[in-house]
């Protein structure tokens, strides 16, 4: 299957007190056409930074290197103007906070219309009609009235639908959804996920779904990449990873949430805390919290190893023997 997006060796450094620290390091993943890839991890592990780096939306004080291949080009190397034609058109994005992601002083129709104007040249009545149609498509009742409303007149769920309408306005190849349901009620979450699944199926849109919720991953994604402290520690098909997790961190994550299937056991938390940017451990970043840590883990950072076709793990336990010594 054709790859829509191919991220190779992505690295993001943050400047703190005149020094640069890697927040995201050696990230490799790809997204196939029509596929939904989940990117999971704890808060602060670099999920959002990864997605903003792909969109080139990180602010000053950050350094991005590596490659983000899209349509035969490296998005990190193209001019700003070309990147703007891709944003909102080929690749669009929705965010965690629907309450604050819309401009409070512009009408909904104007905000959807902006995408249509920027990438399709639509204005006036044509843009308005298209906006109403988009609102209907994302399941907003009374779309003809809502188009003239301001964001504060809508609920959180409705606002996230509007955000999705803006994101889908130009029929993108890839939708990056950064914790799109985290701020919403559980029932609304399910509706928004349903909507995203339907739009992805109907339009063939690939989705990069960033979440800390493994339940959402199980429901939405074909493949999943697990991030820890700025690295992808394991990635592969969702079923495979849920059934046979290989990395101690993934195993820990799955043991820390309740399961409907299997025997009822006590939930086991992962001991310790995520290391801070300035105090990254030498070697494997998970080693200080890992129950299986060996000497090599504390000395040297492991490389990703393929355990099954399409299933990679970054862990010394799975490294070929000669490298692990």
């Amino acid at each position, binding site marked *: 299957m054709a790859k829509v997006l191919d991220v190779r060796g992505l690295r993001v450094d943050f400047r703190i007190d005149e020094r640069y620290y890697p927040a995201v390091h050696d990230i490799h993943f790809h997204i196939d056409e029509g596929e939904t890839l989940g990117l999971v991890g704890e808060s602060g592990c670099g999920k959002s930074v990864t997605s903003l780096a792909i969109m080139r939306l990180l602010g000053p004080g950050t350094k991005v290197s590596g490659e983000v291949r899209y349509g035969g080009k490296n998005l990190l190397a193209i001019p700003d103007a070309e990147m703007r034609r891709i944003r*909102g058109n080929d690749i669009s994005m929705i965010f965690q906070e629907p309450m604050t992601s819309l401009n*409070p002083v512009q009408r909904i129709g104007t905000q959807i219309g902006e995408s249509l104007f920027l990438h399709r040249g639509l204005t006036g009545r044509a843009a308005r009609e298209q906006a109403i149609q988009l609102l209907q498509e994302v399941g907003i009742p009374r779309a003809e009235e809502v188009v003239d409303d301001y964001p504060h007149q809508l609920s959180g769920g409705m606002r996230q639908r509007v955000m999705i309408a803006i994101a889908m306005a130009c029929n993108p190849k890839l939708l990056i959804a950064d914790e799109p349901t985290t701020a919403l009620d559980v029932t609304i979450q399910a509706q928004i996920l349903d909507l995203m699944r339907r739009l992805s199926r109907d339009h063939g849109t690939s989705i990069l779904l960033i979440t800390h919720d493994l339940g959402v991953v199980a429901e939405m994604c074909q493949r999943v990449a697990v991030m820890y402290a700025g690295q992808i520690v394991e990635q592969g098909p969702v079923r495979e990873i849920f059934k046979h997790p290989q990395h101690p961190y993934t195993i820990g994550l799955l043991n820390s949430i309740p399961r409907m299937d299997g025997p009822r056991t006590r939930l086991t938390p992962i001991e310790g805390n995520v290391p801070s940017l300035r105090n990254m451990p030498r070697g494997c970043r998970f080693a200080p919290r890992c129950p299986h840590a060996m000497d090599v883990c504390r000395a040297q950072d492991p490389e990703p190893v393929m355990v099954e076709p399409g299933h990679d793990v970054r862990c010394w336990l799975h490294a070929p023997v000669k490298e692990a010594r």
Partner: protein
Amino acid sequence: MLSYIVRRLGAAVVVLFGISLVTFIIAFAVPADPARLIVGAKASPAIVAEVRHQLGLDQPLPVQYIHYVWRLLHGDLGTSYVYNMPVASLIGQRIGGTVLLAVACWLAELIIGIPLGIYTARRARTWIDYAVSALALVGISLFVPWLGEVLLYLFAFKLPVFPLGGTGGIRHLILPALTYGITGAAVYTRLLKSSMLEVLGQDYVRTARAKGASEQRVIWRHVVRNALIPVVTVAGIDIGTLLSGVVLIEVTFNWNGLGSLATEAISQLDIPVIMGTVLFTAVLVVLFNLLVDILYVFIDPRIRYD
């Protein structure tokens, strides 16, 4: 909305009563006799007493105040001791000059302050930002009469481009407005800069960028309008205050306006004129505050007054 305006106007009446009472008491607390000031130091006590009686100054203070308010309610601001003219027509004579000067000063502040605010916000923490901030600090610290004299010396005396003060048209307005603009713009520059920096960090700005909007478009369509909301508050109060007389500017540039009328009245203890100008000022400030609050509805759709 209408009921809100009525409520606010009702509150304004209470405020104005308070102001009139305080002004009245302060005017009479001054240890000087207006009658004596009018007739001169050499007049006999009998004449002074006669004038005191004519002006009603021999009555108890509460009675005087009640008389004053009673006439006020009938639209009579009283008669100037000095000019022997109704206070209302004195204010009427000066209001035109003051409006012209106030609007010119106000526009100068905004025209200098707002673009600098936008510019420095976009170049925050660069040497240009620091340079403009330093200049703004200098501007805000300058004493208006001093800067006015310097500008008059340079551009009216040495280089006679503009007139040496006096009330008049555009040529007369440029130096006073520039003086006020240079000293007042810094407030707007700083306010708008900090407001823009705050808005630039908002999620909806990131949304606009994620749509593919250019930086220019993001700034003008999304950031500036939201950032201007606090500026409108200050600008509204500012014009209200300016309209009641730009005292220092009027004195420096020999401009006939309400400010110079009020200062003259204070030095001559012309109580009806003092009362009239203070009350007029209060009315303007209250009205412009209300106007700003009404304007909010059009700038920020989240605000409703029902």
